[in-house]
C-alpha cells in the first residue's frame, strides 16, 4: 500500500512538471450543458487543486452530477472548456482520460470476481500479470478488504462492495477520482465510518477528488473545499468554514446547515452594516446588502447555535413561545413560535439535558444572539423563494 501511494505521488509529480507550475488538476472554464431546453450546467468555472477533495454540493437537479459527468467524459460540454492536468479534454473520450470513478450503485461487474473487478483497469492498460496481481492485492489491502478476491460482487455486503468499487477506481492511479454520491446507499453507522476511511485513503494517496453529494453534513465534514450549486450554477466555492460562516447568498446560507431567517431592519452607520432585531443590534458583513437602504427590512440568517436564552440585562432579539422540543442525546432542539420576526419556527439548541423540563411547551422566552457570524441578505420576493433547508425547518413539529 505504501508503494501505491508512492506511485501516486510520482505520477502527480510528473503531471505537475508538464503543466508548468499550474496547481489545477481539473479546470472548468465557462462550461455549459443543455438538455433540450433545460440548462443543466450554466457557465461553470471551477479550478480544483492537485490533491484536493472538492465537493459539489446541491439539491437534486442543481447540475452537480452533470458537472461530474462532463469531467468523466460521459457528457460533452456545449460551451466552455474542461481541462485535466492542464490539457484540454473536451474531445477526449472517457477511456483516455485516466480517471477513476465510483458510482452511486458501485457498478461492479456482476460476471467477474472481485479480483477481476479491481484488476479491470490494469488489464485495459496492458499491465503484466504478476504486477497486476500485486497491485490488486495492494489496493484491496488499502481498502481493508483482503481475502475476497475469488468472490462475486453479489456475495458481498453493501459496505464491502463500496470498498471494492473504491479499490477498482484507485488501483489505476487516476489523475482525478470521481465519487458520485458514494454513501447514499449505506446505513447511517456504516456511512460515518466509510466517510472517515475514504477521506483517509484520499489523503494518503493524495489523489485529486471530486465528490458529489446533496448531504450538506457530509460535505462539511469531508471536503477541503465545497462548490455549492443551485439551478445549474455554482453559487459559492470555499472551505467548509467559509461556506458555513460566510455564505455568499440566501441559497447557500439556507442550504448548508440549519439556519433561522429573522426579519430585521438595516441600520447603516459609519459604513458599518448593523441589523436591528427586537432589542438587539447585530453587525453583519455589508457586501450582500449593497442595494439595501438604511431603514429597509432585511433577512438576518442566524445559525441555531448562535441563539441562546437571554440572561438578565442582555438585549433580547426574539421573544417567542416554546412550541416543541426534539431530544437529540447530546443536545435538545427547541422550536419557538415568534411570528413577529420569523415566518417559520425558530430553531435553537440547548446543551442542558433538562431543557424539556425547564422550558416546557408554552413558556415565553427571550432569545439573544451571540457571536459575530450572522449574515443578512436582501428580503426576497415570494417568487424567488428558495426551496431546500427552509422546508426542513417547516417540517419540524
Amino acid at each position, binding site marked *: 500500500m505504501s508503494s501505491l501511494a508512492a506511485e501516486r505521488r510520482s505520477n502527480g509529480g510528473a503531471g505537475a512538471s508538464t503543466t508548468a507550475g499550474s496547481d489545477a488538476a481539473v479546470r472548468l472554464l465557462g462550461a455549459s450543458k443543455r438538455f433540450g431546453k433545460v440548462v443543466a450546467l450554466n457557465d461553470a468555472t471551477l479550478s480544483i487543486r492537485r490533491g484536493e477533495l472538492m465537493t459539489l454540493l446541491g439539491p437534486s437537479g442543481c447540475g452537480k452530477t452533470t458537472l461530474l459527468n462532463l469531467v*468523466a*467524459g*460521459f457528457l460533452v460540454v456545449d460551451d466552455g472548456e474542461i481541462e485535466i492536468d492542464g490539457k484540454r479534454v473536451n474531445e477526449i*473520450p*472517457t*477511456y*483516455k*482520460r*485516466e*480517471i*477513476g*470513478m465510483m*458510482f452511486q*450503485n458501485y*457498478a*461492479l*461487474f*456482476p*460476471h467477474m470476481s472481485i479480483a477481476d473487478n479491481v484488476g*479491470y*483497469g490494469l488489464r*485495459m*492498460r496492458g499491465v503484466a500479470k504478476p504486477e497486476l496481481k500485486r497491485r490488486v492485492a495492494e489496493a484491496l489491502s488499502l481498502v481493508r478488504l483482503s481475502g475476497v478476491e475469488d468472490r462475486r460482487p453479489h456475495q458481498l455486503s453493501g459496505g464491502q462492495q463500496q470498498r471494492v468499487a473504491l479499490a*477498482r*477506481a484507485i488501483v*489505476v492511479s487516476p489523475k482525478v477520482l*470521481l465519487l458520485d454520491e458514494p454513501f447514499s446507499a449505506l446505513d447511517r453507522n456504516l456511512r460515518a465510518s466509510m466517510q472517515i476511511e475514504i477521506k483517509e485513503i484520499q489523503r494518503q494517496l493524495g489523489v485529486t477528488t471530486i465528490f458529489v453529494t446533496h448531504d450538506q453534513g457530509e460535505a462539511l465534514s469531508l471536503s477541503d473545499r465545497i462548490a455549492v450549486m443551485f439551478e445549474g450554477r455554482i453559487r459559492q466555492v470555499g472551505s467548509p468554514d467559509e461556506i458555513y460562516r460566510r455564505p455568499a447568498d440566501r441559497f447557500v446560507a439556507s442550504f448548508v446547515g440549519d439556519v433561522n431567517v429573522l426579519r430585521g431592519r438595516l441600520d447603516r452607520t459609519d459604513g458599518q452594516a448593523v441589523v436591528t432585531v427586537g432589542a438587539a443590534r447585530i453587525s453583519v458583513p455589508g457586501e450582500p446588502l449593497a442595494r439595501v437602504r438604511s431603514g429597509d427590512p432585511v433577512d438576518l440568517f442566524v445559525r441555531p447555535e448562535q441563539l441562546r436564552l437571554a440572561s438578565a440585562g442582555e438585549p433580547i432579539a426574539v421573544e417567542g413561545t416554546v412550541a416543541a422540543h426534539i431530544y437529540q442525546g447530546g443536545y435538545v432542539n427547541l422550536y419557538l413560535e415568534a411570528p413577529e420576526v420569523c415566518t417559520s419556527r425558530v430553531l435553537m439548541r440547548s446543551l442542558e439535558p433538562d431543557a424539556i423540563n425547564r422550558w416546557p411547551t408554552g413558556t415565553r422566552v427571550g432569545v439573544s444572539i451571540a457571536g459575530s457570524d450572522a449574515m443578512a441578505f436582501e428580503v426576497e420576493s415570494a417568487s424567488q423563494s428558495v426551496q431546500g433547508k427552509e422546508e426542513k425547518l417547516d417540517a419540524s413539529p
Partner: protein
Amino acid sequence: MLGIAGTLAVLAILGFVILPAAVVTVAAFNDKAILAFPPETWSWRWFAKALAYEDFRSGFRNGLIVAGWASSIALLVGATFAFALDRYAFPLKRTIEAVLLSSLVVPHFTIGLGFLILAAQIGWARGFAVVVACHVVLVLPFVLRSVYVSLRNLDQRLELAAASLGASPGRVLATVTLPLLAPGLVGGWLLAAILSFNEFTASLFVTAQRTQTLPVAMYNYVREYADPSMAALSVLYIVATATLLTVANAYLGLGKVLNVESRR
C-alpha cells in the same frame, strides 16, 4: 384456502391443458396400426418406425438447417435493431419497431403465401433460401423482444464504469456488454430455433418436397396414414423440446430473459 370445489376446478383446468399431450403419448404406445385411445395392447414399435421413416429423417435434417440459419440471421438482425431501439433516438422509431414486430399479428399463412408468390417470381421456390427468409420474418419479433428486454435490464453504468477504467468502446462491448447480454442472446436464439423448428403453417407454403421440414412431413404423412407413428414422433418432439428448454433454463436463466424474475 380454495375449498374442495376450487381445488377440483384448478385440477380440471390443469388436466385439460395437458390432456392433448397425454392422449397422444398414450396413443403412441398402441400396438395396433390405428390411432386409438386408450390402446388395448402396448408396444414401442411405432417409435422405431417413426425414427426410420425417410421423410421424417430428411424433415428433421431440413428443420435443423432452416432453424439454425433462420434463428442465427434473426439474432443478428434482431440484436442490432434491439440495440438501436434501446440506445438511440431516431425518427420513425415506433414505426420501425411496429414493422419488425408485425409478423406477430399477420397470419402465418399470409406470410407463407406472400413468400411463395415472391419466390416463384424469381425462381427460388424450390430452395432453402425462401424457407429461411420466411422463418427469419416469423421469429424476428421473439428475438427482438428477448434481446431488448436483456438490454433494458443491463445497467448502463457498468459500461460507463468500464470506460472510466480505460476500456475502449470495442473492449467495453467484448468484456462487459456481450457477456452480460449472453443469456438474452442465447435465449433469444434458442427460442427462435424452437419456434422455427415447430413452424408449420407458413412452412407448408414455402417448402418443396426436397426442403420440407418435419412438421410439414408429419402433415403429409397423416394425410395418407393413420398409424401411431405420428403420435410416437409427437412424444419425441415433446421430450426433446422440454429437455432443451430445461437445460437452457438451468444454464442461462431463461426466466431473466423472458423478464419474469426480478433482477434484484
